[in-house]
């Protein structure tokens, strides 16, 4: 995972479901990720499926990735070379799937970002700059332990390199009063 990424925004609203990201009717293409990825975001913006370029960014509102657990949702975005998904919030399973497969996520206020804007995002320091409109926004970067997984390209390469779930530091022991 590079610390700073730069790319052009594709703009989506709230509640983009995994059915929007990769529709169930392409179920039979799941064995062929390149063919599947040609339909990425098709039901949210057919133009994206046709003309998204490597390095582009997805910018959305609340609850991005809600719905089914299909991991093909982050995978088709990775296959299309999407640099990161920037959204106000993510659905739980999508969030975990994206980290697991190495797709960077940014939780950030996305108001005022328009389609086609050029963004520069510092994933480590939590700065999003809109180069087109000239504003900057702070966000809470992912915690270092999840960035460690992204840094290895996902949880499978992480485990192969480190031998286990070493990135997780389990909470131990509680002393609660009252």
């Amino acid at each position, binding site marked *: 995972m590079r610390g700073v990424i730069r790319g052009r925004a594709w703009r989506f609203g709230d509640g983009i479901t995994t059915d929007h990201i990769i529709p169930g009717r392409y179920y039979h293409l799941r064995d062929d990720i390149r063919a599947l990825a040609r339909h990425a975001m098709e039901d949210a913006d057919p133009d994206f499926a046709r003309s998204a370029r490597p390095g582009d960014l997805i910018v959305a509102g609340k609850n991005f990735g809600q719905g089914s*657990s299909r*991991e093909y949702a982050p995978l088709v975005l990775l296959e299309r070379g999407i640099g990161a998904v920037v959204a106000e*919030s993510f659905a739980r*399973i999508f969030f975990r799937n994206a980290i697991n497969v190495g797709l960077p996520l940014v939780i950030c206020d996305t108001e005022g970002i328009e389609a086609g804007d050029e963004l520069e995002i510092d994933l480590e320091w939590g700065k999003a700059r809109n180069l087109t409109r000239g504003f900057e926004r702070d966000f809470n970067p992912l915690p270092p332990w999840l960035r460690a997984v992204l840094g290895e390209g996902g949880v499978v390469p992480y485990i192969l390199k480190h031998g286990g779930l070493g990135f*997780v530091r389990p*909470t131990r*022991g509680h002393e609660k009063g009252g």
Partner: protein
Amino acid sequence: MAGQTLAEKILSLRLGRTVEAGDLVVVPVDLVLAHEGTAPLAVERFRALGKREPSVPVLLFFDHAAPAPRRELADVQRALRAFAARYRVHLHEVGTGICHQVMAERWAAPGQVIVGADSHTCTAGALGAFAIGMGSTDVAVTMALGENWFRVPETIRIDIRGGGKDSDGLPPGVTPKDVVMRLIGLLGDDGATYKALEFGGPAVEAMDMDGRMTLCNMAVEAGAKTGLCASDGMTWSFLTEMGREAVFFPLAPDSDAEYERRLEVDVSDLPPQVAFPPSVDRIRSVEEAEGIRVDQVLIGTCTNGRLFDLRLAARILAGRKVHPGVRLLVAPASREVYLRAAREGLLEIFVRAGGAVLPPGCGPCVGVHLGVLGEGERCLSTQNRNFPGRMGNPEAEIYLASPATAAASAVTGEITDPREFLRGKGEGCEE
């Protein structure tokens, strides 16, 4: 020290030490689940992790597109059969039923930790298991390591009060599906993200396992990590009926458990509910939907394909005919449900009414086969999602409702309040 929620209790039991909401934990997992839509990737990742054998029992299901509707999917199933034969994998063949239903009938038990590559894995929370939907890679990691990491969720406690005939049950014509849709309307489709929903109160205590599974099934539609019910006498009855009483043990949250939020919902005056497209939290009362014409009605799925649901639908459809403008599809959730429905004569009622009974499985809910919608068509379904394209066509519309509302609407050809159909047909629908 404060008491524990069900989620905290199960994870503490499994770890042998006290954990609380917000903790990060690595927990041994009892069962993993995948189906032919998510298993191929899980198998690929499992192989990449280089382990010889899965470290945890693996349940593999052919339910989403089964029997295979096209050659690509037949080949996927063929490869998975070979994998299952080689490793210790419990393969559930075509016709066995929907993974979540079969999980409840044959595998899940109170206190277990279950990871499934399907978002509705939370259904098993009805039995007092901590059952979490994840992606294929998380299932592969769990297969390889026998454990996975979790953040112990905060819990939203939901107490449901009824008002039916025994003052605990639901009012006539109102089902657990109506209750859970109402809750999702209140919470919003991301109102419980990362949280556990814990269902209780008199109406849940009086509810059988079929109803509790409907509640827990739809927890994820509010964004929740899982849904949970206490393990009690109803759980014991269900497990006994399935020949598995040995795995029963009682499990309840502590009375002084700390909840992030408590919600008390009185459903004694609740009308039947309908979710309008295109999102699960656009919940209205059936009155506002009455008169909307439908082309297809689906009764089934992991939300509402159980015996309770089929009995209720059959009570409305008995001696009636499906409207000529409607296709009625009925898909029992499992072989067990199918056999019992056949024995009780329910399937005959559906067929005589003009419906088509599909093999046990997910049916048209996945949008792959057995009832894909045409352009501009409208379906009323008992499933859990109404997103655009869910049933195979983004130009079609999906409304969600209970099996009672679905059956009544199949008769009239438009969305219809089922309560008038149930009058004079015995009381309520709590049986």
